[in-house]
Structures are given as C-alpha cells and as structure tokens.
C-alpha cells in the first residue's frame, strides 16, 4: 500500500515544517475537545433545578454561602428545624458519607451548608458532596458501578429509579425505616415514592414531587381579549382557545399552546388518560397507542399543529433554541411541571411577564396529571450504610425539605410552607396542592428500562408526523411496530 505521507516528503516540507504541523495538529485536539461534557439538558424536573441555579461559584467549605443562601441565615434555619431521630446507631468513629448530586449553585451551596451543620448533630459523620452534570450522571455512576465504585448516597431522576433498582444499585430502605419509629411514610405522596418501589420494597426517598399544571400568560390573553382558563376547562375548550391565541410570525410568533404531545414518558398521563387512551399498558409491556381513544385525540393535536399552526413545529422549536416558548413570553397556554414556578419567578427582570396557573383541563374520562420528581437512595456499594441512613433520613425529612426548599417538596408536611416561601398567591398554592392530592398520578409515566430506547425510536417517526410527511395513522402504526419488540426488555 502506498504511504499517504510520502507525498509530503516530495512537496518541499522540511523536517521542521513537518514537526510544526504535527505540533499544531496535536494542540488542536485538546482545544477542540474542550466543553465536550456540555449537552442539551433533558426536559423534566431535574433540568429545571439545574438550569434555574445559574453559574456555579467556588464554595468556601468553612463558610459555604451564596447571595441566595447567606451563611448566618442558613445556620439559624438549620438550628431551628426539627431534625429527625433514628434508632440506627451512630458511627463510633469518624466516617465519610459521599453524596452524589446534580449541579446548580442552589443545590451545591445548600448541600455544603448541610454538610457543615450536620456535624453539630452527628460529629462522627463527614459528608463529601460529588457534583456531576445531569446529562453525564447516569453514565458516570453506571460505569462506576460496573467497576464496583459508587458513592454512599446517590441522586436519581424518576425515569432512572427502576433501572437502578433492577441492577442492584440501591439498597432497600425498609429495615432502616423500621428502625426509625418517627418516620412517616404517609407523609410522601404515593406517586412520589412509586418510581422507587419494587416488589414491596422502597429504595429511595423523594426530593421534589411535581404535578403538571396549566400555566397561562395573562398579557397574551388580555391582548387577545380571551378569558383566563380555570378548573372548568376541558381539553376541547383548551384546543379551541389555543386556535384563537396564535399571532405574529417568525421570531415574534406567539403560540396558542405548548408543548406538542409526543410519544415520551408522560404522554399517557398528560394527554391520553383524560380521553380514555394510553400509550403503553400499565405494566409497560404492550403498545396500545393505535387504539381509537389515543389515535383520535392525537389526530386532533396534530391538526392543531399542522392546520391551525397553534403549536411550534420543528423549525419553530429549533428557532427557540429548545427553550420552552412559554418562558420566553411566546406561549399563551402551557402544560408544564410545577418546577416551572421557580423558573418563572427567577426570570431576568427584562424577560418577566404576568402569568398564573390553574388545573390541567379535564376530558371525558376525568382529570389526570403526571407527578414527576427525583430522589436519593443509599447505594449497594456503601461501606457505611448506617451512617448513610442517618444522613438520608435527615436529608429527606420534613426539616431537610424545609432546609433545601424543594419545590414542590415530596413531603406533604413541607408542601405549603415551601410554596409560601416563594410568596405565591394562595390560589396558586392550593391549585398545586390539589392537583397533587386529587388527581396527580404516576400511572402511565414510563419508567421501565426500555424507556430511553423507546423515545429515540419513536422520535424520528413522530417528527415525520409533525412535519406532515406521515399521517397520524401511519405514524402510530410505525410507532407500534418499532416499540413492540423493545418492550420485552421491560418484562
């Protein structure tokens, strides 16, 4: 075979030139690789907590604080809270408990403060916090697990829980809970714990537990002379209203409703159950999206997208750089998680607008909303399970939820107080609470191991449906054909 470098030797390059080229090429590799860890954040509760936090600053471990969480105030709050007790014995010598979290200054500073103050109550426990970007979190810790290394306490988003449990990454907490008489399991909403339950055992304790709500932009509605939505609204009424709220073009376009329903993890609970439809069966082993109830309602949504142009198409989604149009002030009606309350409250002054929220609309079969969230569990590789429980029990207690200001918190006892701290209207707090208690559900939210693959498989099909190049019927047929073989992984 000819040597491809031979030509260089005959074109006048001397040794110095060749070495210079090699050095420049070598330098280009690491420079080009910079920033490889950054990717688009996944939609969901975890992404909002991470993105709402702003830039990470260096935290002084001796006096951790930020503008949002001054040290003295944090210490005063910590000391005033009723931290829980447990019969699980304290370590008799110094132990380190590693806690793996996702980033965000809000999280990091609070965890650093928690790590410092908890020594007052548990002097032999040293907490070490590991921060890993959300997008890399699963990759890092699954790779770590494969080589036998895991932190003591580890974060989990709702979609990861069952996979972590199936692969024995988490320890069951039931024995520790039994040794903690004051632990009130009923203080967590059923939906909040369901993602981390398997075969009657509980493997993690929730941080936040957020129902989806109907947000609306008061300014857009007022300008269009439209009435604000309320609890009496049905999905039919919402679609009709969305048609009348579209205005403008290009970068100035205002959408009537977002987001476009897609075959993703909460399609069933958000858009289908109210009409008697489902994407997968409850045990996630059969695809039923072609059945009339689902098909008919999805056709209506696609009509709203293609014919009425009331929702962002693929180009318009790209045009907003994947940022939710509602938070840009370009969406009139939006069904999104309660974690968006914090996002909207912390918008820069020049981007703020008047908004409010109400219950998601009802359908012929009733009113449903998915409850989504995150949790922490003790890993199976922990060397200090008892110390880890002491930390986890504090972290996820009523006091822990108050200290970390989880919004909305998984613990019902902290629900109202945490939302009141955000200075929200009573109506907003009551609506959020009611939606969680009265019709919030985890039924229909995909969580079994095949879920990431299903989303990738169905995305290109649904993009063709959204662009109008594939009919809804054909799209649903293809979704069913592609998804069905994968569901064997959920058995």
């Amino acid at each position, binding site marked *: *075979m*000819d040597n*491809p*470098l*031979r*030509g*260089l*030797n*005959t*074109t*006048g*390059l001397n040794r110095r*030139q060749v070495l210079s*080229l090699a050095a*420049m*090429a070598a*330098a*280009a590799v690491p*420079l*080009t*690789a*910079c*920033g*490889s860890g*950054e*990717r*688009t954040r996944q939609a969901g509760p975890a992404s909002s907590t991470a993105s709402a936090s702003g830039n990470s600053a260096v935290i002084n471990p001796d006096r951790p604080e930020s503008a949002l969480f001054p040290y003295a105030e944090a210490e005063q709050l910590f000391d005033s809270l009723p931290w829980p007790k447990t019969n699980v014995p304290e370590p008799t010598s110094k132990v380190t408990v590693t806690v793996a979290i996702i980033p965000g200054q809000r999280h990091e500073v609070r965890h650093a403060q928690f790590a410092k103050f908890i020594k007052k109550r548990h002097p032999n426990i040293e907490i070490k916090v590991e921060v890993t970007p959300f997008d890399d979190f699963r*990759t890092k810790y*699954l*790779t770590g*697990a*494969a080589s036998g290394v895991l932190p003591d306490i580890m974060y989990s988003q709702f979609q990861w829980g069952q996979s972590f449990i199936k*692969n*024995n*990454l988490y320890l069951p907490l039931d024995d520790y809970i039994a040794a903690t008489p004051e632990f009130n399991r009923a203080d967590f909403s059923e939906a909040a714990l369901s993602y981390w339950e398997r075969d009657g055992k509980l493997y993690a304790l929730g941080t936040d537990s957020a129902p989806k709500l109907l947000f609306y932009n008061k300014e857009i509605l007022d300008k269009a002379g439209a009435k604000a939505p309320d609890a009496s609204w049905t999905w039919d009424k919402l679609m009709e209203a969305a048609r009348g709220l579209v205005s403008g073009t*290009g*970068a100035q376009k205002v959408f009537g409703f977002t987001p476009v329903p897609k075959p993703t993890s909460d399609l069933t609970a958000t858009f289908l159950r109210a009409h008697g439809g489902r994407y997968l069966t409850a045990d996630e082993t059969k695809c039923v999206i072609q059945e009339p109830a689902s098909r008919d309602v999805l056709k209506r949504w696609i009509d709203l997208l293609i014919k009425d142009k009331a929702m962002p198409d*693929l*180009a318009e*989604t*790209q*045009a907003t*750089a994947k940022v939710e149009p509602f938070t840009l002030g370009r969406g009139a009606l939006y069904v999104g998680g309660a974690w968006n309350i914090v996002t909207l409250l912390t918008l820069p002054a020049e981007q703020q607008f008047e908004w409010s929220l109400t219950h998601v609309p009802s359908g012929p079969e009733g009113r449903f909303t998915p409850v989504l969230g995150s949790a922490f569990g003790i890993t199976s590789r922990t060397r200090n399970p008892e110390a880890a429980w002491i930390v986890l029990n504090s972290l996820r207690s009523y006091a822990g939820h108050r200290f970390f200001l989880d919004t909305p918190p998984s613990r019902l006892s902290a629900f109202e107080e945490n939302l009141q701290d955000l200075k929200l209207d009573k109506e907003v707090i009551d609506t959020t609470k009611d939606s969680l208690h009265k019709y919030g559900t985890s039924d229909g939210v995909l969580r079994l191991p095949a879920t*990431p*693959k299903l989303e*990738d*498989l169905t*995305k*290109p*099909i649904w*993009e*063709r449906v959204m*662009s109008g*190049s594939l009919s809804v019927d054909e799209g649903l047929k293809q979704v069913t054909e592609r998804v069905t073989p994968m569901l064997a992984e959920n058995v």
Partner: protein
Amino acid sequence: MAASPLVRREARRFHLFALPWSIGFVFFTGGPIVVSLVLSFTRYELLSSPQWVGLDNYAQLLRDPDFWMATKNTVYFGAASAAAGVVYSLAAALLLNIKVRGQAIFRTIIYMPSVISGIATALLWIHVLHPDYGLVNYLIGLVGIQGPGWLTDASWAIPGLVIMTTWTTGNAMIIFLAGLQGVPASLYEAAHIDGAGWWSRFRHVTVPMMSPVIFFNLVVGFIGSLQAYQLILFMTDGGPANSTLVLGLYVYRYAFKYFEMGYASTIAWALFFLVIVFTVIQFALARRWVHYEVK
C-alpha cells in the same frame, strides 16, 4: 555480523523514546480495540457479566433499519464534508499564499475556527444556520431566495452540518499552505512563459504538484468525518427524522444511553470496516490522479 555499539545505542534510544507511545497504545488503544472486538460477540449491559452470543449482534445489525439509515447518512456526511473541506481549505491556502500586507493576520483569522471549542462552534452555527434570523439565510435572502430550515428540514440537515464542519478545516489549510510553498516557482515561471493563465497554472501545475497533499487531506478528512458525532449530538441529536443519525452517534446511544456495550461494539466494528473499505477505495483510485515527484 554484530551491530556496532553506536547502532545498538541508537536502537536503545529509539525504543526508549518510542516507549511512552507504545505503552499508551497497548493500554489505551490496542487493549480497548481487542476488548471491543470480543465484546461485539457478547450481550453486555455493563452491570452484568458479558454473555457470549456468537454472531447474534452482527445478525441483528444487518436487520436493524436504523443502522442502515445511519450508514447511509455517515457516508453522505463523510463524503460531502471531506470534499467540501478539501475544496475550501485548498482555496483558502491559495489565497493565503499570496504575498500581501497582513498575510499573517489573515492566516490566523482563517485558522482560528480550528482551535475553537467544538461546543462553542455548535452554538455559534445553530444561530448562523437559524431559519429566521441566521446569517446564511439572510445572505441567501439578499438575492431573493428563501433559505431552508438548515437543521430542521430532513433534506437540508446534513448540508447544514457540512457547511459548519467546512468552517473548521484550518488544519488541512495549514498543510496545503506548507505544500504550496514547496511547489517550485520555476514551474509557474515556465508555464507563464508558455502563456498559461491562472486557471491553467492551477490546473496543470498546482493540482498535480499538490496531488499527494490533496490525497492526504482527503483521506484524513474522510476518516475523521466518518467518525464524527460530537457536534451532531449537540446540534441535532440525529434529527430531524433520523436524517443526521450517523454511526458514531449510534454507537454513543447504544454504549452510553442504553448501556448495551456488546451491540455498541458491533456497530463500532461496522464503522471500522466502513472506514477501511472507503480508505482502500481511495488508495485504489489515487493511482489515477496522485502524482509523486519521487517514485
């Protein structure tokens, strides 16, 4: 005959200097290559032990429609970006070889995109290719043409990515520049005396003399483009409608999203096979157009 002490000393020094690279290759490249080949015959989901499945993964690969879609996209993207990269970088090198005031500044400006972080490049080009306010569509609009949705239209997504990658071909441009400086001026003078214009001089002097360098950049650029995935992951994540799903991205999905290391290794070996096939084809075709000064 025994080697002289000088030869032995030189050999020792050679091995000593080569040792760090050799160790690095064995542990960080050669080892994983062998392991991935073995894993491609297993079902391995990271947290459980690999199970030998023979040729099942390869059989699955042949039946996998997304693999064929990714292969088609990979070849399309690889060929288009390698060709566009060579044309652009050769043109830039020809311009930058002209002796004008501020030549070094121009060279720096053209080379600069090559040292910008990949993600910064992606973010920049998402806006440059933006269908509503992007620079590309604005310029096209000046001549009365409505620009496409570069990254949102399945037909235009790969051309959009090719435009972006062409912008970062500064390394190839530097190699062309060095090559151009090695073309004897006497050949241009002779052609000029014979009445050759700039195009004839380019076609009959520059191209033949530069053909080994063009070939080198084409082969290296094509191999690099076949392996590309990072910017595609960030900019389109394979969409719209799988139109930018390339094999590198497909390997990434199976390895680090679904954690199916066995099948991911199988796709990686298919990609390796593709690289070998196209490289052999390029070497075979090279005999027809690459001219070496020294045979």
